[in-house]
Structure formats: structure tokens, C-alpha cells
């Protein structure tokens, strides 16, 4: 292994390890891409593919991301973008959960869907896509519906759960499991031009509060559908939150919900104060 470290160091320039050298080390020392990336980061080398993360994310933080495991529950509109961004960010392990296959009506927005992947399991498409864009990232595909029965098992060892579900009842089950298992949850939901994001730390009940009037069924997404851009916006906000949780930096969307209206280009923040009730901060 020392030999491999020397090799990586020799091929690095200004602390940056080129992808070609990482691949050469993989071949020469019989490493996996993940092992080569770990070795580089542990020895203070920044894989050059992440060089634009630099000064925003330090080598130590990049290593922290690499050692992190994030579950993405739902691999459709939100989940596709969430997985894409987590993999490019350099989160080392992604658990991708979804029971469905791609259908034609997914093509207008779900980034993992193409005419060629119609009929293919969404989690398989996620696995293939991540292997293509960042082979150092491990994806565990789970072609199953997330629920109370399998939830604890699926979230074992996970540092953050990203909600990319399309069902309010499953979301509430995810919130319940995350609360009991002590896992931070980043909640996102979309419908037409509209979406919202919130972060729920263990012990919080923000998601339960958001849906406290819900009885059954779906929201406005049932009538409006979802266009190409709304999932990308909300998914990106979710990944920013997940990144901050993993790195323990910045100000989280905790005890508050960001509601976004892309038709009128309005952003409203609704505060879910701990001491009873919620508060509308700036809904003008």
C-alpha cells in the first residue's frame, strides 16, 4: 500500500491527483476506484475531479464526504437529481431505494430516464449512471418500496436520509423511522411549479407538522404533474442540506420550511417553532 501511496504522490501536481493517475494506480496495484480515492484523500491528495470543490470543501471534508453513506428514498424526479449531485459531490456510498421501473411519462423530468432505459428498474439506472460519472462512489440499489417493515434495515449505517418520495404516507413513515433511528432527514416535495424543502433532525417533528392536515391521497401534483425544472430546483436544495449535515457546517433549514413558487418566483419561509405552533415569517 505504501508503494501505491508513493505512486499517487508522485503523479500528483500541486496536491491534485489527476484521474488518469488514479486509474493507473487502480490498474497497477489492483485497487478499486473507491480504495484508490480513499488512499489519496487519507494522504492529503485531492482527486483532481473535485478541484472545483476546493476552497469550499477541504481535503479533510472531501474525505468525510467520501466516508459518508446517504440513503436516497425514491429515484424518480427528485431522486435522480439527488443521486447525480451526491455522486458528483463525492459522497462515497449511496443507498438508492425505489420499487419502480421507468415509464414513458417519466421522460419529461426524471434525469435517470431515457428512451433506452424504459422498462428498466430506476435503481439499476442509478447504479449505471453513478458508475459512469463517478466510479469511486458505491451505490447499493434496493428495488423495493421503503416502509416501516424494511426501513430500519435499509437505513442502517446511513448518516442522512434524503426524501425523494412521491407519497405523503411513505414520507411520514420515513420521518418516523428517521426519528427513532436518530438519522437526519432532508425532506423535499414538489407539485407543478411549486415545491418545498425542510431538514428534520432527530427529535424534530417538522415533517409531521407539514402534513398535519393530511388525511389521504396526493397533493397538487396529482392535477399539475411535474415539469423538468421543479425537481431539479428542490433536489439541489436537498443536496445542499445533506452536504451541510455531513460536514457539520452552515445553517440548516431546521424548524423551518422553504416554500418555492416558480410561477410567481416567490420564496416563503415558514417557521416551525419548537415551543408550539408554527410561524409564517415572510409570506407577504
Amino acid at each position, binding site marked *: 500500500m505504501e508503494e501505491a501511496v508513493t505512486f499517487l504522490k508522485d503523479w500528483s501536481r500541486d496536491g491534485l491527483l489527476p484521474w488518469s493517475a488514479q486509474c493507473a494506480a487502480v490498474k497497477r496495484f489492483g485497487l478499486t476506484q473507491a480504495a484508490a480515492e480513499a488512499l489519496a484523500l487519507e494522504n492529503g491528495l485531492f482527486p483532481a475531479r473535485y478541484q472545483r470543490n476546493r476552497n469550499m470543501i477541504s481535503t479533510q471534508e472531501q474525505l468525510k464526504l467520501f466516508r459518508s453513506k446517504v440513503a436516497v428514498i*425514491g429515484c*424518480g*424526479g*427528485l*431522486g435522480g437529481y439527488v443521486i447525480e449531485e451526491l455522486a458528483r459531490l463525492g459522497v462515497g456510498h449511496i443507498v438508492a431505494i425505489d420499487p419502480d421501473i421507468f415509464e414513458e411519462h417519466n421522460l419529461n423530468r426524471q434525469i435517470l430516464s431515457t428512451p433506452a432505459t424504459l422498462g428498466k428498474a430506476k435503481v439499476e439506472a442509478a447504479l449505471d449512471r453513478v458508475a459512469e460519472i463517478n466510479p469511486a462512489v458505491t451505490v447499493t440499489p434496493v428495488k423495493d418500496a421503503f416502509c416501516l417493515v424494511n426501513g430500519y434495515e435499509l437505513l442502517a449505517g446511513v448518516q442522512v436520509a434524503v*426524501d*425523494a*418520495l*412521491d*407519497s*405523503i404516507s411513505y*414520507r411520514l413513515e420515513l420521518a418516523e423511522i428517521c426519528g427513532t433511528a436518530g438519522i437526519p432527514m432532508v425532506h*423535499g*416535495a*414538489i*407539485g*407543478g*411549479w*411549486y*415545491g*418545498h424543502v425542510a431538514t428534520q433532525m432527530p427529535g424534530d417533528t417538522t415533517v409531521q*407538522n*407539514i*402534513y*398535519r*392536515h*393530511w*388525511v*389521504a*391521497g*396526493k*397533493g*397538487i*401534483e*396529482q*392535477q*399539475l404533474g*411535474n415539469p423538468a425544472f421543479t*425537481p431539479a430546483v428542490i433536489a439541489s436544495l436537498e443536496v445542499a442540506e445533506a452536504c451541510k449535515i455531513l460536514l457539520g457546517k452552515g445553517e440548516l433549514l431546521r424548524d423551518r420550511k422553504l*416554500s418555492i*413558487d416558480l410561477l410567481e418566483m416567490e420564496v*416563503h419561509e*415558514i417557521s416551525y417553532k419548537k415551543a408550539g*405552533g*408554527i*410561524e*409564517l*415569517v415572510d*409570506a407577504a
Partner: protein
Amino acid sequence: MQVTIKLFATFRNGRFKIEQRELPEETDVRTVVLSLGLTEAEIGIIMLNGRHGELDQKLKENDILSLFPLVGGG
């Protein structure tokens, strides 16, 4: 009594963003929701004067009622 009603997202379609209404004393949130042609199942969030409101809550003079639709897609 005078009450300010604020609507968000799809609730604005064919209605308004903000409107002042003269309502009989003791009117509750549910009555306003139904008078707007909305159903209880469509309601996501009810805010009354910046705090969480309930459908059976009674409104008072100068109250500000904000209604958001349910959003749950992914």
C-alpha cells in the same frame, strides 16, 4: 369583522393573492375555506396570524389567514 385572506400557489388560480373580507363574528376557518370553493383535503398549511391554525378555529377582527395547498410529489 375584517379579516385578511392570503392564498398561495394553486389556490390563487381564479381567486386572488390577498383580499380583505367582511365576515360575520365567530366565522371559523373551515367556513372561509369552503366559501373559497376549496375542500378540506386540498389544504396543506393553515396559518393564522403567523401561527399554525386549525379548520375549526374561530376568526377574530383583523386576523390574517394564509392558506397553502398540499404538495407531496417527488
